[in-house]
C-alpha cells in the first residue's frame, strides 16, 4: 500500500509539473486555436536563464537559497515574457490569414530555432541546479514527499486559481473571452484584439518561465532538449482536460502524471513481464489518441462542433 501511495505521490508531482506547462498551452489555444509548439521551448529558456543567474550568484552572495532562486525567477520571467511577445509578433501574427498549415509549420520552426539557439548559448551539457533548496522529506503513511514537491503542487494550484480569477473576474479576462468567442465582434466592441493576444502570450510565457525553474529545481538539472518532451506531455495534458479550459489543464496534468507513474510502476506486473516501463512514453501518446478519438473536447471541455 505504501508503494501504491508513493506512486500516487510521484504521479501527482510529475502531473503538477505537466499542469504548469499545460496552463500556458491552454491559454493560447483557448484564444487563438493555435498549438504554440514553441511553448515547451519557452519553458526551457526560462529554466536556462534562471540557472545562469543562480549559477552566477551561488557562492558569491551570502543569501538564503530561496532568495537566490527567487532572483533567478525574477530575471527569467521578464525574459520569457519578451520572448513570448516576440514569437507571437514575428512568427504568428503575420500568418493569421494564411492557411492553417502555415502557422503550425512556423511554430515547429520556432521550436527548433529556440532549441538550437539554447544549445549554442548554454552548450550541450546538462546544466546543474545547485543544491540550495531544502531537500527535507516528510513521511506520510510510509511514503515520502519532499518540501519542494509539496511546493510545486501548491504553486501549480495557486497559479491555476489566479488565472481562473483573471479570466473570469477582470476586464482583461472579459476581453480575452470575447476575443476567443468572436474576434471580429470583440474588435467592434472596442477590444484591442492584438493587445489581448499579445498579453495572452506574455502571461502564458511568464508561467512557462516559472514552470521551467520548478522543473530544473526538482530534477536538479536543465538541458536544451528538456522543453520538447515536456511541451508534448503538457499538450497531451491540456487536451485530456479539455483544451482551452484552465481547470481542465490542471486536471489533465495531474491525471496524466498519475497514469504515467502507475503505468510505469505496474505494467510489468499486470502484463506478467510482457511489457515493462520501457513503454512509459507510449502511455501519454496513447491517452492522447484515445481522448481525441473518443472525446475530442476533453474531460472538462464543452462540446463544440468542429473543435477537433
Amino acid at each position, binding site marked *: 500500500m505504501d508503494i501504491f501511495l508513493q506512486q500516487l505521490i510521484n504521479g501527482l508531482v510529475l502531473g503538477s509539473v505537466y499542469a504548469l506547462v499545460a496552463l500556458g498551452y491552454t491559454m493560447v489555444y483557448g484564444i487563438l486555436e493555435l498549438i504554440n509548439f514553441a511553448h515547451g521551448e519557452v519553458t526551457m529558456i526560462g529554466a536556462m536563464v534562471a540557472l545562469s543567474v543562480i549559477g552566477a550568484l551561488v557562492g558569491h552572495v551570502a543569501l538564503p537559497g530561496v532568495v537566490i532562486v527567487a532572483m533567478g525567477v525574477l530575471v527569467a520571467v521578464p525574459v520569457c515574457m519578451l520572448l513570448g511577445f516576440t514569437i507571437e509578433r514575428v512568427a504568428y501574427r503575420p500568418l493569421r490569414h*494564411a492557411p492553417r498549415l502555415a502557422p503550425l509549420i512556423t511554430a515547429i520552426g520556432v521550436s527548433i530555432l529556440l532549441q538550437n539557439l539554447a544549445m549554442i548559448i548554454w552548450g550541450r551539457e546538462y546544466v546543474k541546479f545547485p543544491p540550495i533548496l531544502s531537500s527535507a522529506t516528510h513521511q506520510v503513511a510510509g511514503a515520502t514527499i519532499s518540501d519542494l514537491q509539496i511546493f510545486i503542487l501548491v504553486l501549480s494550484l495557486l497559479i491555476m486559481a489566479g488565472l481562473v480569477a483573471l479570466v473570469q473576474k477582470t476586464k482583461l479576462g472579459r476581453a480575452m473571452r470575447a476575443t476567443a468567442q468572436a474576434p471580429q465582434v470583440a474588435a467592434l466592441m472596442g477590444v484591442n484584439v492584438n493587445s489581448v493576444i499579445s498579453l495572452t502570450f506574455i502571461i502564458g510565457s511568464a508561467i512557462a518561465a516559472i514552470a521551467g525553474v520548478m522543473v530544473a529545481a526538482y530534477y536538479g538539472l536543465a538541458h536544451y532538449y528538456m522543453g520538447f518532451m515536456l511541451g508534448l506531455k503538457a499538450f497531451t495534458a491540456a487536451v485530456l482536460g479539455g483544451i482551452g479550459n484552465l481547470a481542465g489543464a490542471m486536471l489533465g496534468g495531474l491525471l496524466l502524471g498519475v497514469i504515467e507513474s502507475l503505468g510505469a510502476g505496474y505494467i510489468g506486473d499486470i502484463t506478467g513481464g510482457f511489457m515493462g516501463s520501457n513503454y512509459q512514453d*507510449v502511455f501519454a501518446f496513447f491517452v492522447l489518441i484515445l481522448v481525441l478519438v473518443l472525446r475530442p473536447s476533453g474531460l472538462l471541455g464543452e462540446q463544440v462542433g468542429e473543435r477537433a
Partner: protein
Amino acid sequence: MLLGVLLAALPFLVDAGLGRTWVRILDFTLLYMMLALGLNIVVGYAGLLDLGYIAFYAVGAYLYALLASPQFGLHLPFWLLLPLGALVAGLFGMLLGAPTLRLRGDYLAIVTLGFGEIVRIFMNNLNAPVNITNGPQGISLIDPISIAGVSLGQTHTFAGIEFSSAHSYYYLFLALTLLVMFVSMRLQDSRIGRAWAAIREDETAAEAMGINTRNVKLLAFAMGASFGGVSGGLFAGFQGFISPESFNLLESIMILCMIVLGGMGNIAGVLLGAFLLTVLPEALRSIGDFQRWYFNRIIVDPADLRMLLFGLALVLMMLFRPQGMIPSAQRRREFKHDDAPQEPAPLYDQQK
C-alpha cells in the same frame, strides 16, 4: 532525351569528379526524394500535416531487414519484399489514418507525431520477451538488394564499364524515384488528386460536393505511407544495418522541411528541397573544416548550425514565401493573401 543521358551518366561524372563518396550521397538523395514525394501526397496534396512520417520508412526498413537477414534466417527476394513493404506500410498508414480522420490539422500533427514515436519505441523495445527487432542494437548483415541474381552489393563489370555497388544502387533508386514521380504526377491530375485538393481547401465543402472524405483521406495516408515503406526497404538493403535511432522525430521534421522549402504540392519543388537538404550537411561540413583550419577550433558547430538553419528556414519560408521555392500553380494562388490592414483582425481562418 538529353536529360536521360545526363541522368544515366551522372554517377560516372560525379565519381570521376568528386569521388565515390558523392555517388553514395547521390543515392541517399534519391532515397530522400522518394520519401519527400511520399510525404508530399499527404501534406502537399491532401493538406494533412503528418509529423510521424518517418514511421512508415521505419516499417519498410524493418520489414525488409527482418525478412532478408540472419535475424530469422529468412532471405526473401527483393521483388517480393518491395511490394510487401509498400503494402504493409500502406496498412500502417491506414492504421494511423483511421482513428484520426475526424481530427483537424493541428491535432492531427500532434497525433501523427505521437504515432511516429510509438512506432520507434516499439522497434526499440521488441527484443524482449520475444526478440523480434533486436531492440536498440538494430539489425545488421541485412542482405544487399539483388535483382535477377545480380547482387547490388558487389562491383560488376558490364560491357567493359565497372559498376560499383554505389553505382548500381543509383540506377535502381533512380528508376524507382522516376516511378514514384510519375505516379505522383498522375495522381495529382486524377479524380483522387482533385478530391485531395478539395478537402485540403475546404473539407466541409468537399463533403457537400459528394466527396467521400473518409476514403479519400485514408487513401492519401496509405499512398504516402507506401512510398515511405518502399524507400525504407531500399534503405535497409543499401545500408545493411538499421537501428531505431535512424527513425527519430528529427528525420520526420527534416522531410517536412524538404517539401516546405521546395514547395508543397509541387513535384519539382519537392525534389529540389530533398536535394538541397541532403547535400546541405555535406556542404556545412566544409564550414566546420574551414573553422578548424582557420581558427584551429570549432566556434559554431556545423551540426548545431544545420538545425538552427532548418528552424529559421521553416519560419522564414512561411512568412515570406509560403508557396516554397518552386510553388505549384494552385498553391501560388492559395497563398496569395493581400496584406490589407489587419484591424479589425479576424483570427486564424476558421475554415482551413
